[in-house]
Every structure is written in structure tokens, then in C-alpha cells.
């Protein structure tokens, strides 16, 4: 890559590798410990002198976690909400991102400032009026209400991120396609869109994770029986504070699919972020 491999650098490379492994161990330990606790017999989890290595393999913590409260209902609701938010956010966000990155028009600057500014409002600051609004619209305790509320933070994010990807694609490519007889829409579909696709994947993944992880709105805008996965886990911890082993089993079930998804798209995401490198 960008470092030059000169002879005699072997030794320093070993040093860097050692440092890298240290980062690996320190950053990875919490995740390891979560999975380790989840599969460990419950009595080993309250050993005052815990063994760092796995002591035994049991699924009883998972069974217990599923017994304590309905797990699949909350997960299903979280999936519906997150996927809807991503689809709506990406379609509407892409249109808006095109508008502010490929058109010159009066008011463009105001829109950009607006999109930037609204990202600065902490969600928790808006919870009081949002709660009152959903109440007025008869959307309290409804997934549709939560979906539209999530767009408050997903939309500005997708618009701003997609804009970043679009401006990285040279305008000349589009213009060349138009000189060759493409319409503006045709140029977008054939030239810009393929280059933008990896960026859109990356943006969708960020958006999905944000929606999946959201806690406060889900807590405040849905009743206990319609709770999402994050609220499920947080409640789990307050009600059974000392039962850490089943809690870690629940945490593992919630996190693993997301993490696997992340690992799968990771390469595409890197490609998306570097696609803009091929310039001129």
C-alpha cells in the first residue's frame, strides 16, 4: 500500500504487528467476554475468580433468556422498523442528495445548512414534543409512528452521506454520457448509479444500524407489550440485574446478526468509500 517496503524494515514490522495484536486483544475483549459468559454454566458466571478461558459449553443461558420474556416479538418489530426506515430514508434521501449536489438553485445553501443543523439536535431534546405530536396523530404505540419518527435522524444522515458520495463522482463522466446522447436521467442511471451503488450500500448499513440501535424513542413511544429489541434487553437488565449470564446470552443473540451483517458488507463498504479515488 502506501508504506514503502524497504529492506531492513522487517524488524519494525514485527513491532507494529505486536502493537496491532494488542489493539486486537484490548478492543476485542469485551465482545469475547460477552460470548464467553453467554455460553458458560450459570454458576461459573458468579465465580469470584473467573477463568479467562471457556469453562464449559451450555445453551441453558439462552433458554433462560428466551423464557424470561418474549424475544422474537421485539426482534421482529425492530426488523420491521429498521428495514422500513432504511428503504424510505434511502429513496427520499437519494433524491434530496441529488438535488443539493448536482443542481444549482436559489436556496441550496439554506437547505444544506438546514440538513446540517438538524443533525445537531439531540434526539432526547425532541422527545417531549414528538411524544405529544404522535399522541395528536393517534400514532402513539404504533410501529408506523416510530418509523416516521426515526426518519428525523435517518433522513438528514442519508442525505448528507449520499451527497458526499455523489460529489466524489466526477461530473465530467455524466457530461460525457450526455454528450454521447444520454438524457440526464439516463446518464444518472448508467453512469452515476453504478459508481454510487457501493456508497449506497454503506449508507444503508449505517442507517440500519442506527435504527436498530435506537433506544429512547422506542422506550417512550411504544408501550411495554410492543417493545423493540433494545428495550427488551434494557428491561431485562433492570428486572434481573444480577442474572448476568442469561443477559449476556440475550445480548449475544441481539448483536451477532448485526455484527455478521457488518462483516459481510465490510468489503463493499471499503470499496464504496474508495470508489471516489479513481478520479480523472
Amino acid at each position: 500500500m502506501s508504506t514503502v517496503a524497504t529492506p531492513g524494515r522487517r524488524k519494525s514490522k514485527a513491532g507494529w504487528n505486536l502493537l496491532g495484536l494488542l489493539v486486537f486483544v484490548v478492543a476485542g475483549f469485551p465482545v469475547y467476554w460477552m460470548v464467553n459468559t453467554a455460553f458458560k454454566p450459570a454458576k461459573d458466571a458468579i465465580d469470584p475468580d473467573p477463568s479467562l478461558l471457556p469453562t464449559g459449553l451450555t445453551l441453558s443461558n439462552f433458554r433462560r433468556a428466551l423464557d424470561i420474556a418474549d424475544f422474537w416479538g421485539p426482534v421482529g418489530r425492530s426488523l420491521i422498523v429498521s428495514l422500513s426506515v432504511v428503504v424510505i430514508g434511502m429513496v427520499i434521501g437519494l433524491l434530496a442528495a441529488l438535488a443539493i449536489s448536482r443542481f444549482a438553485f436559489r436556496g441550496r445553501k439554506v437547505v444544506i445548512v438546514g440538513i446540517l443543523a438538524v443533525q445537531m439536535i439531540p434526539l432526547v431534546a425532541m422527545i417531549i414534543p414528538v411524544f405529544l405530536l404522535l399522541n395528536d396523530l393517534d400514532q402513539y404505540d404504533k410501529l408506523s409512528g416510530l418509523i416516521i419518527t426515526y426518519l428525523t435522524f435517518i433522513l438528514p444522515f442519508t442525505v448528507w452521506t449520499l451527497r458526499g458520495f455523489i460529489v466524489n463522482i466526477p461530473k465530467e463522466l455524466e457530461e460525457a454520457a450526455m454528450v454521447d446522447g444520454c438524457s440526464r436521467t439516463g446518464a444518472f442511471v448508467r453512469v452515476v448509479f453504478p459508481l454510487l451503488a457501493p456508497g449506497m450500500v454503506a449508507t444503508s448499513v449505517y442507517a440500519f444500524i442506527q435504527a436498530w440501535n435506537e433506544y429512547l424513542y422506542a422506550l417512550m413511544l411504544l408501550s411495554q407489550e410492543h417493545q423493540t429489541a433494545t428495550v427488551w434487553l434494557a428491561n431485562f437488565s433492570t428486572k434481573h440485574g444480577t442474572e448476568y449470564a442469561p443477559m449476556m446470552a440475550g445480548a449475544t443473540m441481539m448483536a451477532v446478526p448485526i455484527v455478521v451483517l457488518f462483516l459481510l458488507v465490510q468489503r463493499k463498504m471499503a470499496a464504496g468509500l474508495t470508489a471516489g479515488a479513481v478520479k480523472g
Partner: protein
Amino acid sequence: MSAVDTTTPAKVLAPPPDSPQRPRVNRRSGGPAVPWLLLAPCLAILGLVLGYPLYRLVTLSFQMFGQSQLWGFKPAEWVGFGNFSKVLGDSEFWQVVLRTIVFAVGCVVFTMVIGMLVALLLQRVSGWVKTLVNIVLVASWGMPVIVATTLFKWLFDSDYGILNALLSKLPGVQMIGHNWFASGPQGLAVIMLLVVWGAVPFVVITLGAGLTQVPSELEEAARLDGAGAWGVFRYVTLPILKPIIVMLTTLSVIWDMGVFPQVFVMRGGHPEPEFQLLTTYSYDRAFVVNDYGQGSAIALLTVLLLLGVVAVYMRQMLKIGEVE
């Protein structure tokens, strides 16, 4: 923070690759209505779920709005600046402000510095180490905040937490039973660690992608001209990464000032006074004390504070927007 202090003068040496000529704006197709049509759905939704509540937040903060107003028994009563003078006159509020600023600045600085160091480190390690670290980073990045919070609660548990057990193995250290959340500063330090742990991967991966865009010829040229590792970083790498760094820092400020679930869940839904940040303080006033007017006033003040903090970066972002 590091972004602005260190990079501005260096821009002269290596201009961003795409800045020399301003792109011409295409006015050929479509009338002036096209961009507005494209923006319409976005603006409509934001107007409904953001614009209106924001307006409502402002009016609420000038009203006496409690339980009976919530249920519609009594109309909301206009009290002018009453809520604000009550909040601003409360010394607890100012303690919360200070605590929030210290907490957020700590989070942002640690996140950016560690993120940059790890991103640079990943350029220098062998492929297999890079893969290992990347897997771990992605795993902790994808970790839902609530999962991470419950996980850290478990790591730092006073009786059975692994951290206390490990620390106690050190000679002369006896930490079993130590409650990390007995004092505010110590507990918030743990929460800061949690926030940084979750935020670093995004920074590393984004900066890492940016680093691959730094042309190696530029670095080589700098090296041939006698620049050391620091010189290359300072005068070649940093200027090229500057837009990414500015964006990451802005986002970090926004996120770290808005930290809520970590504190809320870590303290079992009832943060003690010495754990209150502006976000939880506003929530507390509204939903625990049932004074929605004061809660809104605090939320509004938080937003204003944040606007002040980020205004500088906004200007920076706009400059970038201009160039494009």
C-alpha cells in the same frame, strides 16, 4: 479538535485533489423546479417530524406544562421566560452543563486521537493482523449501544466483574467488591470508555478508507525531500484527510453531547444527581418531575449550546460545500 489546530496552514503544500477548478454547474436540463421537486418528500417529512416538534419545543419552554396539561384537563399557561429563569438560576444546572462539556470533550478527543493512531497503525501491520483488528473493530462498531452498555455493566460489576478480578491479580491490589459507580467522576469515566470503545471503529474505518486515497507518490516525494514520519503525516496525510477529520469531529461532538442511553441504562433508568448530563437532566425534569415546560427549556438550551460549539465546524463544512 486536532483537526483545525494542526491542518490549516498545511493546505498550501498539498491542495485536495479535486479543488483546482470549480465545477461548472449544469443548467441545461430541467427548470428551477426540478431540485425542489427532488427535495419535496424529504422536506415534507422533516417538516412534520422535526420542524413542527421543534416549534412545539420552543413554545413549550415558554409554558407552564405539567401533568394536567398533558391529559388536557387544563390549558397550557404562558409564563414567558419563567422556565428559563428557574433553570438558569439553579446552580445544579450549571454543574450539569460543566459536566456535560467535560464529558463530551473527553469523549471526542480520545475517540479522534485513538482512531487516528489505530488507522495509521493498520497501514503498517501485516495483512493478517489487519484482518484480525478489522474484525474486532467491526464487531464492536456493530454492537448496539444497549448491548454494549449491559456488557460494560457486567465487565465492571463490583462482585463478579472480570475487571475487578483481573485488577486484583496485580500484587497489592484488592478490587473485588469495588463499586465503579459509587462516585460520579469514576462512573462517568467508565461510561466515557464505553462511548469511546463504540465510537473508535467508525473513525478508524473511515480514516482508513481516506488513507488509501493518499497517493503514495506524494508520501514518497516528501520522504525523498527529507521529511520524517511525522513530517509526512503532518504535511501530506493530514491535509488530504482534513475534510474527513472535520466531518468525523463534528459528528462526534454531536453524538457525544447527545449521550443518553449509556447513562440512563447504566444507572438502571434513574441516574443519580452526580451522573446527570444535560440530556438526562432534561428527561428527568420532563418525565420524572413532570415539568414538561422546564424540561423543554433545558432541551432548548442544550440545542443552543451545541449550535455554539459546532458553529465553527459548520462554517468549515460550508466551505467544503462551496468548493464542490
